[in-house]
C-alpha cells in the first residue's frame, strides 16, 4: 500500500537554483505519466465503444472461458467479460481518484489553511486535531469502516479522504503561515489591497502548487487503497472495479494452478500498477517544479 504524501517531499534545503533545470530534465517522466492517465481517462469515458459487453452481464459467455476473438481476456466465473470489466473498472478508479483527492484537499484547506489565516485559538485547536488525526492507525481504521461500505463506495471514499486531509493540512498550514509572515503581504495590505486581493494574489499562487501536488499524490494513494480494500472484500461487491476483479480472480481456488491468471490476474494487476505509477510520477515530477521550500526559504 502506498505511503502518505509527505514522503515525496525533498528535505528543507534552498534549491531555487535547480528548480527550472529539474523541471526540464524530468519532463519525459511527466509525459509518460500524463499519457497513461490520458489513456485511462479515455478508457473510462469511451468504455461503451471499446467493448460490446455490459461488464455486469453474467450471460456474456460461459463460465471461465479462455481468451478468444469474442472475449479478449476470457470470462469470469458467472460468465462476465473480463475485458469489459477492465475497461469499465477505469471509471471506478477515476471516481475514487477525483473524489478522494478533492475531498482530502478540501479537508486540508479547512483544517490547515483556514485556521492558519484566522490564527489564534482556532489555529491551535485545529493543529491539535490534525496531530490527533495523524496519529490514528489508518489501516485498521480503514478495515473497520470499510466493512460499513459493503453496499456502496461512499463510506470508503470518505475514510480515504479523511486520512488524506491531516498530512496535507500540515503541509499547507506551514506554507500558509510562512506566506502570512511574508513581508509582501503586509505590504500589500498597507497599500490598501483588500483581504480578497491578498487572497487572490498572494495566498492562491503560493498554495496552488502544493494543492496540486497533494491532490495528485493523494489520488494515487486513494486508488491503491480502494483497490486493496475491495480486494480484501470490503468494498461494494456489486461494483465493477480493478480491486474487485483481483478479489474475484484470487478467490478462485488455487488460480495459479491454471493458466487463467495470465489473462485474468496479470492484465488487471499491471493496469492498476501502471495507473498508480503514472499518478506517482506526475506527483514526483510536479514537486521540484513547485517545491514549497523554494518559496519559504528566503
Amino acid at each position, binding site marked *: 500500500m502506498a505511503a502518505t504524501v509527505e514522503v515525496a517531499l525533498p528535505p528543507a534545503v534552498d534549491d531555487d537554483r535547480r528548480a527550472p533545470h529539474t523541471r526540464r530534465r524530468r519532463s519525459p517522466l511527466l509525459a509518460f505519466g500524463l499519457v497513461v492517465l490520458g489513456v485511462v481517462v479515455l478508457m473510462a469515458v469511451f468504455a461503451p465503444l471499446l467493448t460490446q459487453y455490459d461488464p455486469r452481464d453474467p450471460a456474456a459467455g460461459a463460465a471461465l472461458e479462455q481468451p478468444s476473438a469474442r472475449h479478449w481476456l476470457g470470462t469470469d466465473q458467472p*460468465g462476465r467479460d473480463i475485458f469489459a470489466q477492465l475497461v469499465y473498472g477505469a471509471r471506478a478508479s477515476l471516481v475514487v481518484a477525483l473524489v478522494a483527492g478533492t475531498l482530502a484537499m478540501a479537508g486540508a484547506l479547512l483544517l490547515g489553511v483556514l485556521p492558519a489565516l484566522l490564527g489564534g485559538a482556532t489555529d491551535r485547536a485545529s493543529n491539535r486535531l490534525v496531530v490527533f488525526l495523524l496519529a490514528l492507525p489508518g489501516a485498521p481504521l480503514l478495515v473497520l469502516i470499510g466493512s460499513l461500505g459493503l453496499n456502496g463506495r461512499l463510506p470508503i471514499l470518505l475514510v480515504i479522504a479523511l486520512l488524506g486531509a491531516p498530512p496535507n493540512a500540515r503541509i499547507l498550514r506551514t506554507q500558509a503561515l510562512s506566506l502570512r509572515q511574508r513581508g509582501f503581504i503586509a505590504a500589500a495590505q498597507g497599500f490598501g489591497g483588500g483581504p480578497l486581493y491578498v487572497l487572490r494574489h498572494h495566498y492562491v499562487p503560493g498554495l496552488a502548487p502544493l494543492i496540486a501536488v497533494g491532490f495528485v499524490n493523494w489520488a494515487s494513494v486513494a486508488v491503491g487503497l480502494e483497490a486493496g480494500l475491495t480486494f480484501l472484500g470490503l468494498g461494494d*461487491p456489486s461494483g465493477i472495479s480493478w480491486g474487485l476483479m483481483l478479489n474475484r480472480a484470487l478467490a478462485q*481456488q*488455487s488460480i495459479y494452478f491454471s493458466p487463467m491468471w495470465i489473462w485474468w490476474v496479470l492484465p488487471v494487476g499491471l493496469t492498476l500498477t501502471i495507473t498508480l505509477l503514472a499518478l506517482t510520477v506526475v506527483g514526483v515530477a510536479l514537486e521540484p517544479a513547485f517545491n514549497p521550500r523554494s518559496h519559504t526559504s528566503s
Partner: protein
Amino acid sequence: MTEPMLLDRRQFLLASLGGMGALVLGSCTQTVDQGTGLTVRLPQGATGFPSPWASNADIGYAQMSLLYDTLLWRDGSGELLPWLAQRYQSSADHLTYTFELRENLRWSDGRPLTADDVVFTFDYYAAQGTLPPPVIIQPPQGIANVAARGPSTVEITLTRPHNTFVGQVAAALPIVPKHVWASINDPVGVDDLKKLVGSGAYRLREYNGDGGAMLYTARDDFFLGAPFVKRIEERAIEDPIAALAAGQTDAGRGVGLRADTLAPFANDTFGKITEQGASTLPLYWNLNKEGPLSDVRFRRACAMAIDRRDLVNRLAAGRGLPGNPGFLSPANPFFAPVRQYDFDVPGAGALLDAAGYRMGPGGIRQDRGQPLSFELLISNAEAPLSEILVGSLRRVGVELRPTAVEIGPQLFGNKLIGKYDMAVLFFPGPGPGGPNTDPDVLRVLFSSKVEPSLQAATAYASPAFDDLAEKQRLAFDDGERKALVAQMQQILADDLPMLPLFYPETVVLFRTQVLDEWYFTPGQFPTLQDNKQLFITGRRTGTTIRS
C-alpha cells in the same frame, strides 16, 4: 554536528533489533515430546478452545471430539458403533434407553469413567441453559431423567419417543468428567489446557501456538487399544489445496473445484473422495411479506427462471447436483422425486402474467402499481451467484437488489429476525455424507411448531406438513418413515417456501502414503477431522485397530 546523531541512530537500531530478537525467542514455546509413528497433518487451525462448551462450529466440534467420547460413534458406513457404551437397548415404547458402559474406561488423568460421569454430563448440560454454538447448541431436549443403575449402567428416560435420540444425542453429546467440571460455574469461560481431561484417544499437547496450531498425540491406554494414527498436527492454512500440493499437509478439502485445480492430484500419490450434498445454498422468500413473496405462483416462477443445472456448471465447474425443490439432495437415502420446476423462461413469464404481475416501465413487472423489486440478502463470498440470480430474474421482469452480507462469515441477523425480502444462505447438508443427513432436518427447518432459526423457512405454516413432521419423528420403521418423509418433500416442493439452488461437490484429496482411505461421516460435518474412527482404527468400519 552529525556525530552524535549517528551514534544515537546506531544505538537505536541495535536496541530495537535486540528487543525484537528477545521478544521472538521469548515467545517460543517449550519442547514437546515428538512421538513416533504415523503422523497426519491437517490444514485447519483452532477456531476456539476445544472444550465441549467453547469449541466453535463444525471444525471445533471435530477437534473437541478427538479429546472426548460419546456413548456411541459413527464409522465410515454410517453405522453406530459401540463406543463408551458397549451395548444399549431401548424399551418397547422407545421411552427408556439403557446404556452399558465398557469396563476399562479411564479419563486421561487416570481416573475411571463411570455411569456417574454420564449422569453428571446430562445434568450439567441441562443446567447450563443456552450455550454458545458448537454443533449441539442446546442442551438435549426432551429428556425426562438420567440415572445410574450401577457403576457402569445408565438409564435415560425421554419425555416422548424420538427416533433421532440415538443418532443426535447418544452419538453426539461428549461425556465429560464430573471431577473436573462439577466445580465450574462458567464452562464457556474455561481456557485452561489442564481442564481438558477426556476419555478420547488423543491428548492435546499444544494449542494455539501460532495462529491456531494444534498438536494431538495418541493415548496408548485408550479403551480400544493404542490408536493407529499416533500424532495429528493441525495448523491454519489459507489455501489447503496448495498446501497439499506443496507437501505441507496430508489432506485437503475443497468445494466445487475446477478440473485444473484437481489435475496435479490425479496420480498415485493422492487419493480422492467426493460427496454431493454435503452443503447447499438455499434461496429463501420471506413469506411474512404481503404480495408476491407470499404468493406461491411468484415463487414457482422464480424457480423456473433460474437454471439450476447452469449454476452447477458455472459455479461448481460442473461438479455437483442441481437443487431439488424437495430440499433433500438426490443422493440422500430419504430422497423422493418431486416436481422439479424445470428451467423455462417463457413458462415463468406466463405464470407471472397469469398471476396478474404485468410488465411495467423499464421491463419490471408490477403488483398493483408496485414494481417487483426485492432486496436479496446474500453473502459477499457468493457474489458470482448473486450476479447470476439478478440476471436470471431480470429476464422475467423481476428486479433483485443484492445486499451483501459480510466478508466471509455470515452475519445474517436480518434473516433471523425476518427483516428481508429474499435471501441466500449457506446450509451444511442435507447429506448423505455431511451433517443434517437425518430427514428430521425437514421438521426443524419447515415445521411451524419449531422455534425459528437462522436457516429455517420464514413464516411457513402448513398444518399437513407439521402433522407429517411429527409422525415421522415417532416412526421407528425405516419404510414407514420413508413414506412419510416422501409426502413431506412433496408438500415442500408444491409450496416452495425455500429452494436449494445447487449441491456443489465436496472433494477431499489425501496423500495415500499416509492414510489410504478417507470418508465423509454420514451425519457429521465434512471436516477433515471428523474421521476420528479412521484415525483410531486405520479402517473404514468397525472398532478393531489395524496393526
